[in-house]
């Protein structure tokens, strides 16, 4: 991304409260409508319009076979419109409702993410934002994924979301979140704060599919705290255009043998600007991190970051960042960073950015594939990150989501 476009001149006179974010274009929030969260309602998802359903389905949300989901949450703009759960030991509700129900929840509020991180978190903090509360009670395991949809329907609106996810000791949570918009064109902003708390021996897999528009600005702010023997597996996919996306989710391994793995797949069409990374702090003995990202530009600009910090002996981290430039324009900048603060940390990274090697295309052509088929096979392989530890059903769904979007690539 070239420097001169990083801060558009029109936004210099921004009157937003809170400090400018460290990374990404400075979005002028004053150009958009802000709302205070509306009261949660409860509608039957079946009554949503076909168009809304179609959009949500494009982001991985399922309506027809709800037996394949342990729970569902839908927020439209700034109002939660549906939460349901089908399993004992699992809780899914609007965060506003959860705050009324549980006094202790305020102790989790803004603990993983600081409210004054930047003007986007400040905006979420100032507007009594709603969002989802998903919790697994000690030892409870979701049989099927819980799905959550954050849906931006109104033009020129800022959607504020604040989510809290708690996996109590020995529990297991599988969550799919789909974020998308009603229209393919209207401008809008999505600000999403997500705080994950993974207790001792708990496991959380979190798969997020973003499907925005060339006019949407997106600023997720996510942080995860992982206790002893906890596991956090995050999969992030964005294959549709976006105006400007910047996110740098972080995970802190604070308990022994805590493990985290971030996989991200991003495809930037012309006009899209994505600045995306994952950050891990290995603060306890035996904790492990793996960050894998795959970036493809077909004309957009991508910054793919990664950061692993080892602050304790016997920690291990690996960062793999690969970028593919397809077509004649577009840039990918890979910025992998490692920091070790003492002996006994084992951190490594590999990064590569380039075009598809002609030699590889020709190899497949010699087997009878056309140039286009060969290219598609290689790109599919490139995006085929081995998502270890994901339940087969989720794995299949992620694969399907990626394959559907792949069709737009060729």
């Amino acid at each position, binding site marked *: 991304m070239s420097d001169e476009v990083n801060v558009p001149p029109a936004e210099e006179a921004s009157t937003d409260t809170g400090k400018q974010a460290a990374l990404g274009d400075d979005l002028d929030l004053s150009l958009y409508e802000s709302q205070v969260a509306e009261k949660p309602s409860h509608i039957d998802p079946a009554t949503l319009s076909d168009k809304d359903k179609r959009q949500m389905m494009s982001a991985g949300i399922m309506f027809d076979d709800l037996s394949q989901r342990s729970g569902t949450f839908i927020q439209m703009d700034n109002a939660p419109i549906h939460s349901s759960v089908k399993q004992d030991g699992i809780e899914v509700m609007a965060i506003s409702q959860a705050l009324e129900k549980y006094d202790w929840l305020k102790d989790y509020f803004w603990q993983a993410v600081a409210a004054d991180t930047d003007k986007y978190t400040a905006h979420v903090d100032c507007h009594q934002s709603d969002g989802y509360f998903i919790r697994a009670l000690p030892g409870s395991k979701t049989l099927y994924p819980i799905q959550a949809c954050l849906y931006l329907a109104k033009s020129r609106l800022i959607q504020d979301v604040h989510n809290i996810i708690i996996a109590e000791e020995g529990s297991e949570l599988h969550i799919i979140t789909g974020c998308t918009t009603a229209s393919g064109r209207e401008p809008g902003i999505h600000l999403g704060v997500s705080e994950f708390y993974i207790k001792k021996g708990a496991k959380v897999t979190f798969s997020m599919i973003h499907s925005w528009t060339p006019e949407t600005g997106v600023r997720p702010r996510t942080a995860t705290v992982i206790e002893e023997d906890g596991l956090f597996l995050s999969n992030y996919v964005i294959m549709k255009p976006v105006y400007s996306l910047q996110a740098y989710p972080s995970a802190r391994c604070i308990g022994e043998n805590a493990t985290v793995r971030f996989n991200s797949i991003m495809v930037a069409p012309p006009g899209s600007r994505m600045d995306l990374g994952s950050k891990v702090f290995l603060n306890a003995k035996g904790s492990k991190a793996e960050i894998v990202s795959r970036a493809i530009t077909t004309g957009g600009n991508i910054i793919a970051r990664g950061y692993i910090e080892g602050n304790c002996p016997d920690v291990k981290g690996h960062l793999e960042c690969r970028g593919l430039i397809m077509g004649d324009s577009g840039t990918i900048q890979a910025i992998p960073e490692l920091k070790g603060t003492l002996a006994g940390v084992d951190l490594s990274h590999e990064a590569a950015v380039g075009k598809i*090697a002609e*030699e590889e295309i*020709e*190899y497949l*052509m*010699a*087997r*009878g*594939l056309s140039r286009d088929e060969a290219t598609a096979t290689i790109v599919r*392989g490139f995006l085929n990150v081995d998502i270890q530890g994901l339940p087969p059903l989720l794995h299949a769904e992620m694969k399907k989501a990626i394959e559907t979007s792949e069709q737009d690539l060729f």
Partner: protein
Amino acid sequence: MDKKNLLEIKDLSVSVDGRHILHDINLFVQPGETQVIFGPNGSGKTTLLMTIMGFPRYQVTKGRILFKGKDITDLPLDKRANLGIGLLFQRPPVVRGVKTRDIVAACLKETEGSKATEQLAEKANLTEFLDRDINYGFSGGEIKRSELLQLLAQAPELALLDEPESGVDLENIALIGQLINDLLGKIHPIYMRTHSGLIISHTGHILDYVNARTGYVMCNGRIICEGDPHDILTTIKEKGYQECVSCPMK
């Protein structure tokens, strides 16, 4: 044109990146026939096979290549593959993320879930390699078997084998020989086609497994000798390629 020939190479000259490598090559392969090419390192053997296969870097500056009577000199790589030409690469590239299984299935032109991929892999003793990235971390011998696995799936009428037995241990050479035999089996069990082979060899071990009656020696981009491959091999072993270069028969 001789209708009997599967492959005809006439007065072929080839340059790579502006450098002339092959000069005035003439070579004919009949259906069902297997031929062997010998020659010192750098003499142009791989260049010849890559040119027949149709890699764009190998530019034909003179002469023609005919396959099944059709002039393929200007035909793209994938079209030649689909006409029935297959290549065992001397040094195939690694393609990260693309699984051996994907390529074998593509060669078989089958939909996913077919048993044929598994069966062929078992034959090549590569079952555990199906879900590995193609050629990634494969040993020298594993690469040869994986190449043969792909060719078996492709079942080309003309198999171009670039050093199929180099770097293969004595036990595996029998397996390689067997796979090549399957590949060149006179009649393909399904397609009822006759299969031909053009094999590059340094050691001649492959002669124990295939029935080859014609051999060539290539030197400095030219074919300087044609004859019984066993005789050629004996001469090379006894006297080296120097003898071929000064051989009065050429």
